[in-house]
């Protein structure tokens, strides 16, 4: 053991150790209080976040390099194959889009007839998930754009298959997001088939959501698609969230036991989309569109 001799002479001479610890503990408690009660410390957090950014980049770099290497060394045959597959996919999507335009126009006309607020198209931006773990006890992820790019707290995140989560903390260059499977996350959803509204709560398991607030006689069955209802204000309406797995009705209980599987593969996505939904116009009579009509 290499003990430095000059240090070991007299332990009592480490100046005011107890006092320093006491002060630091009080400062910590004050910080935690401020951080928990109100979000007073966002600026501090952002400042330190910038300092952590290089470390995050360094951790993320090997994976990024690996995928870059994979991309740049793919063979021509593979690329051609992928190209033709993408082309056919694009053809299909385009065909669907053509119908969508017609449907959108029809929808707008009908909404005008009903005097409802027109749905606004959402702005979307693609971001990447950094290969960086955040808190291991929460389902969090770090994405590579931040307030510099206009990201804001509470912003909705979707992948190609469905809702992924929402931003909880924006840094300058990175942001932290919570997945819909986190135990602290709840999301207002509606059943696509009949407009039944409820709330999907995260379970802490990456492939399961709970719907705890459905009465036993609710019209829901396995295979139902749940989409965002837009009621919470954070998520725009109409994005797929999950598919109902199982519905267990126990006669004595007042609520049915309903679980659902997230539509997006939460642990596999790397590219995600952030949605800038048009802010709900305040002062208007109709805050939310009547979804059950």
């Amino acid at each position, binding site marked *: 053991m290499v003990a430095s001799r000059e240090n070991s002479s007299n*332990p009592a001479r480490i100046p005011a*150790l107890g006092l320093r*610890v006491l002060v630091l503990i009080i400062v910590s408690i004050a910080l935690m209080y401020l951080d928990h009660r109100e979000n007073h410390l966002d600026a501090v957090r952002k400042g*330190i976040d910038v300092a952590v950014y290089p*470390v995050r980049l360094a*951790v993320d770099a090997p994976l990024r390099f690996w995928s870059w290497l994979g991309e740049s060394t793919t063979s021509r045959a593979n690329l051609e194959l992928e190209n033709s597959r993408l082309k056919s996919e694009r053809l299909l999507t385009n065909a669907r889009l053509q119908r969508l335009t017609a449907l959108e126009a029809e929808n707008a006309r009908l909404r005008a007839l009903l005097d409802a607020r027109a749905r606004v198209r959402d702005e979307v931006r693609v971001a990447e998930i950094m290969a960086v773990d*955040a808190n291991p*006890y929460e389902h*969090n992820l770090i994405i590579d754009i931040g307030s510099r790019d206009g990201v804001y707290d509470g912003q909705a995140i979707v992948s190609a298959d469905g809702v992924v989560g929402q931003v909880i903390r924006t840094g300058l260059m990175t942001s932290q997001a919570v997945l819909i499977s986190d135990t602290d996350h709840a999301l207002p959803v509606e059943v696509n088939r009949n407009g039944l509204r409820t709330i999907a709560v995260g379970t802490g398991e990456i492939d399961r959501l709970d719907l705890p607030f459905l009465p036993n006689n609710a019209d829901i069955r396995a295979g139902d698609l749940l989409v965002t209802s837009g009621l919470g204000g954070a998520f725009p309406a109409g994005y797929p969230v999950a598919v109902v797995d199982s519905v267990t009705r126990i006669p004595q209980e007042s609520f049915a036991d309903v679980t659902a599987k997230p539509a997006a593969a939460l642990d596999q996505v790397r590219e995600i989309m952030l949605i800038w939904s048009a802010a709900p116009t305040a002062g208007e009579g109709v805050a939310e569109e009547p979804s059950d009509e």
Partner: protein
Amino acid sequence: MSREHASRRLPVIVTFVVGLMLSIMPLPEALAPLRPDWLALLAIFWAMQLPRTWSVGSAWIVGIILDVSYGTLLGQHALALCVIVFITVRFHLLMRVFPLSQLTATVFALLALYQFLLFWISGVASVSAPAIAYWAPVITGTVIWPFLYMFLSGVRYRARAGR
């Protein structure tokens, strides 16, 4: 004095940056709860070896950085690190003469305290946390400690020799 300090701080800072990288490195879903608290282990080691240059204040700063990168309450890890470093500095003379087995047992107790403090603060702030998986880092941290200890002693010896 200041040159001496610089040469003492450099290895500490380097190990802490590496420790932070290990703390946020992605792990497979199954292994993620087993990740040892690298920064707590490093903090214990350096507090034991260099209790003057490396003490509660620096531990607190490291804790704040960890809080920001984990997105936990600002001050949570800082407080927990601060407390275990305080205990380590208080007993650093004793811990230096401990045989490795006894030292490892002490580290186990310190890690358990660290985890308990984090758990407790989460509970007070009503942030939910799973109960069993929470204690896994204490075990993995204890298992890794002897190897880390030998490695860091080597690092420290080299750094001193190169001075």
